[in-house]
């Protein structure tokens, strides 16, 4: 079943929330969902589509979601849509310059932009290599700046598990970064 089909199912089996609440949901959480999808491996060109699927699916069930729990709810939908999108895209491997954000918002000078794009591409590459359970926790902590208890709540796991995953994720990431730096030094020394 495609992500769209899931969204349709979810919409059709839902009870509606007020338009104002749905609009508020989009405005408040769009960036969170979009960035989460990006860091979970959805390329820039697909992130808008995927984010839209998340909100289409979520809007239909928002009426059932307790106020204050919207982000946790969206997170679950985003993980689901993200996984399906990745599968439907055949886990297209992103290349440097392809995955990096070319967003319209802050446009620094050319050099900074290039550096940012390269950094994001490398970040995505490293994240893509991490085990999924660690990556999610890592992204929520390091990029979305959630606390461990918040992550535990969002992921519906015990706090101890969240803390443990975070510790392992940070070690994993640091090792990957260290290897990258070593490779860079090596290739720099060769030249």
């Amino acid at each position: 079943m495609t992500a769209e089909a899931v969204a349709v199912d979810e919409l059709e089996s839902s009870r509606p929330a007020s338009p104002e609440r749905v609009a508020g949901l989009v405005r408040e959480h769009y960036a969170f969902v979009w960035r989460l999808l990006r860091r979970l491996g959805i390329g820039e060109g697909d992130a808008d589509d995927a984010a839209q699927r998340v909100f289409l699916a979520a809007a239909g069930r928002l009426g059932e979601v307790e106020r204050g729990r919207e982000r946790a709810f969206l997170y679950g939908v985003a993980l689901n849509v993200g996984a399906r999108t990745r599968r439907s895209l055949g886990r297209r491997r992103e290349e440097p310059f392809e995955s990096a954000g070319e967003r319209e918002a802050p446009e620094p000078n050319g050099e900074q932009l290039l550096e940012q794009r390269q950094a994001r591409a490398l970040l995505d590459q490293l994240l893509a290599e991490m085990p999924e359970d660690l990556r999610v926790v890592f992204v929520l902590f390091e990029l979305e700046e959630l606390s461990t208890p918040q992550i535990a709540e969002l992921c519906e796991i015990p706090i101890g598990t969240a803390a443990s995953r975070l510790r392992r994720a940070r070690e994993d990431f640091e090792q990957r970064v260290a290897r990258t730096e070593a490779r860079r030094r090596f290739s720099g020394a060769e030249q």
Partner: protein
Amino acid sequence: MTDPQRFSRRSKGLAAELLRAGASERPNEQGMQQTLLALGLSGVVLSSTGVAAATAAASAPLTSAASASAAAGSVGLTTAGTVKAVSATLIIKWVGIGVLGGVGLAGVAVVASPMPNAVVPSAPRAPEVSPTPAAPARPQPRTAVAGSAAPSAVPPVAVPAASSALHAGAVEARAANPELDLGELLAAEVAYVDRARALLAASSSSQGLALLEAYERKFHEARLLPEVLFLQLEAYERSGRSTEARRIAQRLVDTFPNSPHVGRARKLLDQ
């Protein structure tokens, strides 16, 4: 429980740099607006800024007709009771009979008087809403889209039937909901092509090409198609993909024989 210090807070180091770059990435406003449109919430958005809710019918995006209509139904319209919802419902009725109230900023008064007419395709590159498109229209309407587009337009604003949506799968959605906020969607289309062009110019040709190749899936009205084909042609030529370049050139010549871009295409085909 005390959380560890985040890597991004470190003053230096590659990990900190990478994470800061990742955290600073933001979606563009357009994506959010498209999502609101898809949800049938443009009326809410517009009315909150004092603008008429002419586009409340949400044709934008993505999923199937069923999902789009379900989104509008379950989200935007079943919660009547507010002026916004009522006006959205009225607009949906108009949309249901294929009438397009292409009212941008003019407001509610214009929405009330849609007039069915023959389709007046917009000029390929006109980003603004033009009453009488002066540029030559495309000679061949794109049938795949025409089927889904409402065969009507409102003379004062010459709104093309359905809009371009930013998202794949929009054909089905728009078949059911040809209503749109033309200004927004045209702007989205222009921005999309500009972005592709910028990427091509910045040597990110694979990403630029990917955007161009996805263009017709995302914008089913494809008002900028001649330009997109031309950009594709150039990009393929530059990257040595002559077969694709010729294929695009042939399509450009066949489909848009009067386009100013055709000269280059003919030259390539004559080689």
